[in-house]
């Protein structure tokens, strides 16, 4: 009969929520697969506690990468900036007989200087950020090696310090650093979406010429994004050193691809002008769970790479199905 007259009420999802929705949908699907194949592992609190130990490091790094990516640039130099800021932290710590705050300040200052350096190369000299930061990554890694002289630096005195308890202690099954990581995500999320700086970051990656014509200082915005990466590097390296009471100069290795994957799996397109902080948090969680998940479902650790690849490509498919704008 009058079937034609039946109106199908479509649920309209605002565009700005789609990337987050896509990322979380994908995350829950992946977790369902893991739980199905290894329920005894994935339904235990201990499993999550283990994942949450390192998750904040990926979140904090990824947050700054979202800013850079949305501003229309990319930063591949953060792994060695991480190692360099960590080294400066360690050296200052030793030199000042465990003055944590001075060491942290020195580390942040180093991070800021690294960001300014990259920002100068990219905005003032007009170099491609992809190639520049690739070079800078090698350069900072070299500087770190030269300064560190192959040493493993241990800080056993930290083991029972109140600072360590506050930064990387545990609140029940929840590691303290997770709270710090999420707190930083919340603050940067508000800045990203509600502060003039965040708005200008979007414009810088979308149409920098328009921004300049309207009086936005695009170069300054981009430099500040690189500086943010440096600061996040120093926070991440400090947390990492406190966690292990150890500094090793290769601490940045193993971050590059997972952090970038977290940004893109989270739904921030590589083209700039758009991005999501909440998506990044979910993306980082997805990425960190892959490592553990692949092993827990009974596969060889060698399969981790394959798992990563599948997740990145499948998540791109998911994002495209939702918004159709992540194909580039």
């Amino acid at each position, binding site marked *: 009969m009058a079937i034609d007259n039946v109106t199908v009420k479509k649920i309209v999802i605002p565009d700005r929520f789609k990337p987050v929705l896509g990322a979380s949908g994908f995350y829950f699907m992946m977790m369902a697969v893991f739980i199905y194949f290894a329920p005894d592992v994935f339904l235990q609190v201990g499993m999550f506690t283990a994942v949450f130990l390192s998750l904040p490091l990926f979140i904090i790094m990824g947050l700054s990468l979202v800013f850079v990516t949305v501003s229309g640039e990319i930063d591949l130099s953060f792994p060695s900036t991480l190692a360099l800021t960590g080294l400066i932290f360690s050296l200052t710590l030793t030199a000042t007989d465990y003055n944590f705050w001075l060491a942290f300040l020195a580390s942040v200052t180093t991070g800021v200087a690294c960001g300014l350096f990259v920002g100068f190369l990219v905005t003032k000299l007009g170099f491609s950020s992809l190639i520049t930061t690739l070079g800078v990554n090698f350069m900072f890694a070299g500087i770190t090696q030269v300064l560190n002289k192959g040493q493993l630096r241990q800080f056993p005195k930290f083991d029972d310090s109140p600072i360590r308890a506050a930064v990387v202690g545990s609140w029940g099954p929840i590691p303290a650093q997770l709270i710090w990581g999420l707190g930083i995500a919340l603050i940067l999320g508000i800045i990203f979406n509600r502060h003039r700086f965040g708005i200008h970051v979007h414009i810088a990656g979308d149409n920098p010429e328009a921004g300049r*014509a309207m*009086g936005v200082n695009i170069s300054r915005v981009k430099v500040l994004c690189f500086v943010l990466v440096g600061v996040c590097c120093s926070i991440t390296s400090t947390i990492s050193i406190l966690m292990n009471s150890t500094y090793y100069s290769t601490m940045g290795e193993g971050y590059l691809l997972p952090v970038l994957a977290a940004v893109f799996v989270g739904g921030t397109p590589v083209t700039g002008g758009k991005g999501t902080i909440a998506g990044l948090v979910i993306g980082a969680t997805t990425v960190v769970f892959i490592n553990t998940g692949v092993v827990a479902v009974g596969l060889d650790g060698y399969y981790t790479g394959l798992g990563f690849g599948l997740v990145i490509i499948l998540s791109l498919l998911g994002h495209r199905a939702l918004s159709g704008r992540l194909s580039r």
Partner: protein
Amino acid sequence: MDKSPLIELIGVEKTFGRVQALSNINLKLYEGEIVSLVGDNGAGKTTLTKIISGTESADDGAKIILRGQEQKNWNAAKARKLGIETVHQNRALSEQQSIYANVFMGRELVNRFGFVKRKEQIKETEALMRKIGYTSKVWTPHSPVLKLSGGERQGVAISRAILFDSSLVMLDEPTTAMALSEQAEVMEFILNLKAQGRSVIFISHNPWDAHAVADRFVILDRGRLVFDGPKGNTTADEFISMLRDVAKKGSV
């Protein structure tokens, strides 16, 4: 006119590599007048407006005097702060961002910590959209600009220029890609600006439009200012033959 000018340009030159885009431009602009800036492609019209709006800087030695004050380190942010708004030829819109983000681009309403007053911006954008006739219910202040048509995008660019209390509005080819009815609205809008006491620099390829609203004509030819005079009783036909002379001989 013996009033003091709103803005005065002295000896403005601009070279791009070996190309002289503007040579020795001297121009005065008074309050409440509409100047039609005309000339062939490559005459330097857009470059001149970009220098006035601070988007492009003039070569050394040029002077920009605003309300009797010589301006140093002239840039886009300063120009907007001092009441110069521009509707750029390429519209200068950030397409993935919302309509309200574009309307307030570079002049965001913020509290003293720099956080954007979103609700106020949305409210003002809604009022603006009603004013310029966005009757379509499809678009809200949240809609990204990339979903709008050419004319609608121009509407956003133009409404941005009137939102702030500007004393000079420059429109660079504002009617490109517009329907006839929309073009008529833009002409109406320009006359309205004058009625409010604002000055207008209007660039158009259409000599009839340029003639219709002008108080004064400024004709550029290959970077030189070849004519600057009041419209008076010049008819549209006379104006067009002037333009033809310039194109042929390089002078009126």
